[in-house]
Structures are given as C-alpha cells and as structure tokens.
C-alpha cells in the first residue's frame, strides 16, 4: 500500500477536509504522502507535515498553481501517481473536479464520496441521495477516491513530523484559467467544519427574514448558516449555503432546520448530524421523521424566543 493525498487549501490554510482524508487513509493502511500544490505554500506544507500519520509532504510550487485549475492539477497528480495504490481527494469542489480527470488518464475507475473503508480494495458509498449504501470492490492497480468528509473524523492538526520535499511541476496545460472568484462574505464559522449549523428553508419567506431571524440565533450559538435548495433557488442566500445531495454534506454535533420541509435531497446532506432539531409549522413535514427534537410552530415567533432563551445562561 502507498497512498497519495491531494491537499485541499486556500493558499494559507489547509482545510479540515484534508485531515478527514488522512483518517480515511489510516483505515486503508500504508504510508501516506500529501501533495501540496500551489504558489507560496510553505505555511500549508508545514500544517500538512504536522498531521500525525503523514510520512512525507510533497511540495509542488509553481506560479500557475496559485489558483489551480483541475487541468493543471491533473497533470501534476498523474505524474506523481506512479505505483501508488490509492490516490485520495477530499470531496470538495476542487477534488470533485480533479479526481475524475486523474482516474480517466490513469485508465482506472473512480470511487466517489467514500463513506467507509472496508479494506484496501473495498469501499462503501451512498447512492440515490443517501437512501442506499453500495459496497464496491476495485481490483485496479490504483484506486482513485474522493472522501466524504462528513463520514470521517478529521485527524488531529498537530503531533506529526513528516519530512518535506519539493517535486517537479509539469507545465501549465494552458487550456483553462481562473479569472475571478466571488467568495460569499460571512463572519460565521465555515459550514462544513462547524459544530453547530442552522439552516433555513422557504418557510422563512425572504432573504431579509432569513438574516433577521437566523443571524442572531447563529450568533448566540456560534453556528454556521446553511440553507435548503429552495431557499437558495429563491435567492435568500448564495449557492454555497446549500446543504444536500448536490450541495454540502455535513455532520455537525447540532443541526437546526428552520422552515425546511425535509425533501430526501436535503436529508442527504445532513442526516448524519449527531442531534437534529426541526422547527416547522407543518406537523406532517418529513423533516420531523429524522429530527431528534421537533417543534411544531410558527418560526416567526419560535425563533426569536429560542434566540432569547439561548442567550440567557442556563439556570
């Protein structure tokens, strides 16, 4: 066994998703190398080297990797894949864009969104919006995998001491480039890493209501904000708030669904949360079937009261 993990980072910080991939790699077994691709990546490389269980950090530093495209990353990773038994990506937007390119050029199938590792050849992944779990076996020389972050506890950020070295970066294929980025501004914790998540749905009625009602509650609980597809489609919040089958898949300690009916496509993104709270005026809403605590009521009354009581210390 020999495992290569592709680091997911923003140029200054290694994402927690990468540490989830390290945990998945530990379940497979064998030496783990992490490749950090970017430009000016010493900080990120040090963070990768500090994760326990990582043997080597491979630094791929080139100016065209500052905002890496899947095309440029693929050229690098195919060159590094060699006789690796496993190439692991976190199931982030860059991982989802790049892994299939790498698999296709290595002429091996990819196993997407792996939720558990049975052994080095055998993996479980959700299909049909998580309503079915499928176990696949691959006999291929290299297994290209994307790791479902919500299913693996992140490896600790410190305690390791991997060696670091530079690798040769192939030239930019020059067929694509990133020309703009519009990151949603939020002072809230990051959705996929937060301990508490508050999600709003169409029941909130407008983007203003979403902010006025959920903002203070998120502040009181130091929570991240999420949303159903309906709320994103209606324009209440940007696309990166979406939780669900085709949005973000999360498993926080506490998930509070407000004004969300709970379509199966939404449940696919949050049903592995440890504790689920649902607030909805419709007692028949499917969200109550997965909620640990359900409160049937008018969210316009319930949410401000909830916020107020949370803000008071427990007696």
């Amino acid at each position, binding site marked *: 066994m020999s495992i290569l993990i592709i680091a997911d980072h923003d140029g200054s910080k290694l994402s927690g998703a990468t540490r989830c991939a390290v945990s998945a790699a530990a379940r497979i077994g064998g030496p783990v190398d992490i490749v950090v691709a970017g430009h000016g990546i010493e900080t990120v490389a040090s963070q990768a080297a500090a994760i326990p269980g990582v043997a080597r950090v491979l630094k791929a530093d080139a100016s065209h990797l500052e905002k890496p*495209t899947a095309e440029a990353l693929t050229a690098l990773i195919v060159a590094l894949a060699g006789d690796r038994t496993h190439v692991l990506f976190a199931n982030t937007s860059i991982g*989802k864009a790049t892994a299939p390119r790498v698999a296709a050029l290595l002429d091996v199938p990819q196993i997407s969104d792996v939720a558990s590792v049975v052994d080095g050849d055998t993996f479980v992944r959700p*299909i049909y919006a998580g309503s079915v779990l499928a176990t696949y*076996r*691959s006999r291929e020389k290299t297994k290209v995998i994307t790791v479902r972050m919500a299913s693996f506890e992140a490896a600790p950020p410190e305690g390791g001491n991997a060696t670091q070295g530079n690798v040769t970066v192939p030239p930019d294929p020059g067929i694509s480039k990133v020309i703009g980025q519009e990151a949603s501004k939020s002072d809230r914790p990051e959705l996929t890493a937060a301990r508490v998540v508050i999600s709003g749905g169409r029941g909130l009625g407008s983007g203003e209501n979403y902010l006025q009602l959920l903002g203070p509650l998120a502040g009181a609980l130091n929570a991240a904000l999420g949303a159903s597809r309906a709320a994103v489609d209606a324009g209440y919040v940007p696309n990166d708030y979406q939780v669900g089958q085709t949005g973000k898949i999360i498993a926080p300690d506490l998930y509070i669904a407000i004004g969300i009916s709970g379509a199966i496509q939404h449940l696919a993104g949050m049903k592995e949360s*440890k504790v689920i709270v649902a607030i909805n005026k419709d007692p028949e809403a499917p969200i*109550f079937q997965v909620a640990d605590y359900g409160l049937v009521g008018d969210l316009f009354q319930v949410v401000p009261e*909830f916020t107020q009581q949370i803000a008071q210390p427990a007696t």
Partner: protein
Amino acid sequence: MKVLVPVKRVVDFNVKVRVKSDGTGVDLGGVKMSMNPFDEIAVEEAVRLKEKGIATEVVAVSCGVAQCQETLRTALAIGADRAILVETGVDLQPLAVAKLLREIVRKEEPRLVITGKQAIDDDANQTGQMLAALLGWPQAPFASKLELSRDSAQVVREVDVGLETVEIRLPAVVTCDLRLNEPRYATLPNIMKAKKKPLETITPAALGVDPAPRLELLKVEEPGKRKAGVLVKDVSELVLKLRTEAKVI
C-alpha cells in the same frame, strides 16, 4: 457550432427507491424513469444556445438500454435536433460512458459538450470530467452561467466558497449545476414533432469500446434509520432538552 448533450435515464427524483431483498441491487421493476434532472438543464442550455443563433445543431446522446430512446425523445421535444443511442444492456459505469462518449465526439466533432454535473442515481459526478480528460479538453464543471465567444467560454461555477469564473478554450466540456437555467416543459406539438426527428442507434462494439464494469458491486443495503425523536411542546422544553439531555448547547 455543434453542441453535444449526453443525457441519462434515471429513476425519477420523486421515487423512493427500494433495495432488492437479496442485496444485489436496487429494485427498478415498475419504477418511473425520467431524464436525469441535471441533464435536462443541459439540454435546455443547448437549445437556448441554438435559439440565440450560437449553436447550429444540438445532438443528444444517451448510453444504455433500448428504453433510453424515451429519454432521447424528451431531449428532442425540448428542442434537440437529432439523437444517438449507444445501446447496451451492460451496467454502465462512468469510465465506460466517458469512453463511449469520446468515440461519439470523435465522429460528431462538436465544439461544446454540455451535460449534467451528476446523475441522481449513482451520484458519481465523474462522467463530464472524465470525458474532458480523455479528449484532452478543458472543462467547467458545476456551471451556473455560460457565455460563449468564438474560441473560448467564460463559465461561472458553483464552488465551496461561492462562485468562481473560469475561461476555457474550446472545444470543451461544461457540466451543469442547478441554477444554470430552468428547463421548459415540452409542449404537446413539440412532443409530436420529436417523434419524427432522427434517432440513430449504435453499439459499443461498433465504437470499439468495451463497456464492461470495472468496479464490482458487492452489495447494496439501506442505511440504518435514525431512531424516532420527540416533539417538544415549546421553546423552553427544547432548550432544556438540548442543554440537559443532548448536552449540545
């Protein structure tokens, strides 16, 4: 420019699928099938490009069983000009589909391939990217806005942190996210017209591709159910339970 739109026949998104009792697969008997919703967005986008005079021809292609003809007829009813079915009874995995599509691209020579970002049955999210890689083409997966010029495309993509704009050289592969457009309903006259549009059938063997699955499906099962929760009567009870029982706040 010619636009190729790969579409997949999948279990309708409203159906609650059931696992076969022997755990060998999902029970598809008597289940309503539809076009993958993301592929419907792709067809709509291609047809809009034709209506704007940018696309000259829209060709829909599907790989799978004979019934995929129905899916292709849906694409033709939305406005595709003609269709190709790569017919096989083999259980197709994304790598095999990408290889079949590569051969179709070689024959048809489109400047743009638009397809859905993922199919809602296997949720793999692979085929478009694999096809782009096999062709040596650039890609723009998870597109929410597409603008074409003569030799390139500017595409706004939905990514984890928000939106990203990429410029890709043509020919290229674009995969659609939910908010690229809202597909139209096919009208009855267009459904009738679609029946007369050309639909060609070809086999994987004729394309020189072995479509056999490379991953072995060992079993499928339903995930463990969450245990039933409780309804609380008011906010005070909810806060109390979260503090003392669940201990999460």
